[in-house]
């Protein structure tokens, strides 16, 4: 347990000692703030007058906040491969993985440590994003349940991206290949969702397999244990594969 925390902390710190984490957070914050402001002004000028008289009208949390989190998920689909590629592939390329494999720590501790370090960064990102809807508290009241579901859903979605990326990063010694394959896999899972919803070839199975479908139900404010379990299985599965792969390195050479 201790070794996991040591690796996670160093991993987290190293991301912040390079421009990587800073530029990621700055860029995400800038783009999402822009989207947030756009949504907000549209809501104020166009939507609010229309729905003001309605009973049970969709509130600001439904219209602005949900789409903000959806955008965050979509953007991170493109960013996550760049974060995960360095976790193991870069260590391989720089021959620094030997340091960890020679130290008295197990392969699972290495993988979990690295994963946890990245989760910390994801948590920081989600927290900074959540400051935007929280700022609305100054002028209105929020639907807390919906906001909490969206935060949890985004975090789980990004955690599943990270687990898949970590595994693909363990397969190669070229960071760029790890990034491309991670991006490909994540896009593929999204395409599964689109094709599952398409006219003619709609498929419940495809929708179920895609991580986006589960994310959307979180955004609707539905907290379903099945969605939670889907993400946990997804994450555990890829982490186990990564552990197996690293263990196999020792055997195969």
């Amino acid at each position, binding site marked *: 347990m201790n070794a996991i925390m040591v690796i996670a902390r160093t991993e987290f*710190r190293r991301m912040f000692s390079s421009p990587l984490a800073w530029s990621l957070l700055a860029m995400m914050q800038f783009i999402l703030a822009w989207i947030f402001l756009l949504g907000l002004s549209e809501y104020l000028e166009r939507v609010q007058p229309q729905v003001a008289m309605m009973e049970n009208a969709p509130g600001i949390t439904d219209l602005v906040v949900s789409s903000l989190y959806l955008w965050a998920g979509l953007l991170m689909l493109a960013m996550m491969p760049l974060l995960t590629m360095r976790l193991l592939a870069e260590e391989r390329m*720089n021959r620094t*993985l*030997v340091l960890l494999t*020679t*130290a008295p720590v197990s392969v699972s501790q290495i993988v979990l440590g690295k994963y946890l370090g990245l989760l910390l960064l994801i948590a920081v990102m989600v927290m900074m994003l959540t400051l935007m809807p929280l700022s609305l508290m100054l002028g209105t009241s929020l639907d807390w349940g919906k906001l909490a579901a969206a935060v949890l859903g985004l975090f789980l979605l990004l955690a599943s991206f990270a687990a898949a990326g970590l595994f693909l990063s363990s397969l190669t010694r070229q960071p760029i290949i790890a990034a491309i394959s991670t991006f490909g896999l994540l896009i593929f899972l999204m395409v599964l969702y689109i094709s599952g919803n398409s006219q003619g070839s709609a498929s419940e199975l495809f929708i179920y397999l895609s991580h986006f479908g589960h994310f959307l139900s979180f955004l609707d404010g539905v907290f379903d244990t099945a969605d939670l379990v889907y993400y946990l299985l997804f994450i555990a599965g890829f982490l186990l594969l990564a552990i197996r792969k690293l263990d196999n390195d*020792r055997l195969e*050479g």
Partner: protein
Amino acid sequence: MNSESLIEAVALSRFFGAHCAVEKINLQLGRGEVLGLLGPNGAGKSTTMQMLTGNLAPGSGEIKVNGIDLLDEPRKAKCHIGYLPEQPPVYRDMSVNEYLRYCARLHSLEWREAITAADEAKERCNLQEVQHRLIGNLSKGFQQRVGIAQAILHKPAVIILDEPTVGLDPIQIREIRALIRELGEEHGIILSTHILPEVQAVCDRVQILNRGRTVFNDKLGAVESLENIFFELVYQDDPAVVVSVAAEPEVSV
């Protein structure tokens, strides 16, 4: 030789596909002994070292480090090993201090102990003047010394150095050799190299590998001319080379 045996490797073999990298090598190391592992490129030196440090599983054979079976209890055995691979496993984006403390923490030292251990290692390897600098900005010689510091900071019983003086200037080579001699008084050291004078300068005993087999294993004191033995043994089954060596007896290495 000292009675206490730090490394006891019996009948180590390792195949990569059909290619036999190491075949039935026996290797012993006592406390206070510096063992030179000598051989031409591709003789199996690095493979042997990877197996001794638990980075590569041997195809057959067994390894005991300080009496602990490396294959059965890898984490316990690895506490007694310090390893410097061919390329020092340093993170270029960390400062010397950060890096060494991280390494110490990986060896499950507490925070305070880790700082003390890192300070001691810095002193031994003359790294105080660069302790705040990023490793990536240091010269090759300093990076190599950081690598050695990393291998000795948890005071392991066995220190394994893979070509520690490659790429260093003559003054640095002399310093590192002096350091190895000094460390050899209390630890057991295995050193791989293909520089014959280096073996003569620092080692107590030499084990010569060729094509994955041990062809010579004796104390240096009993050896008249290491160079003669080396060429005789290594090239004995390669007639083409014997001819060229005979035609050109003054081979300087």
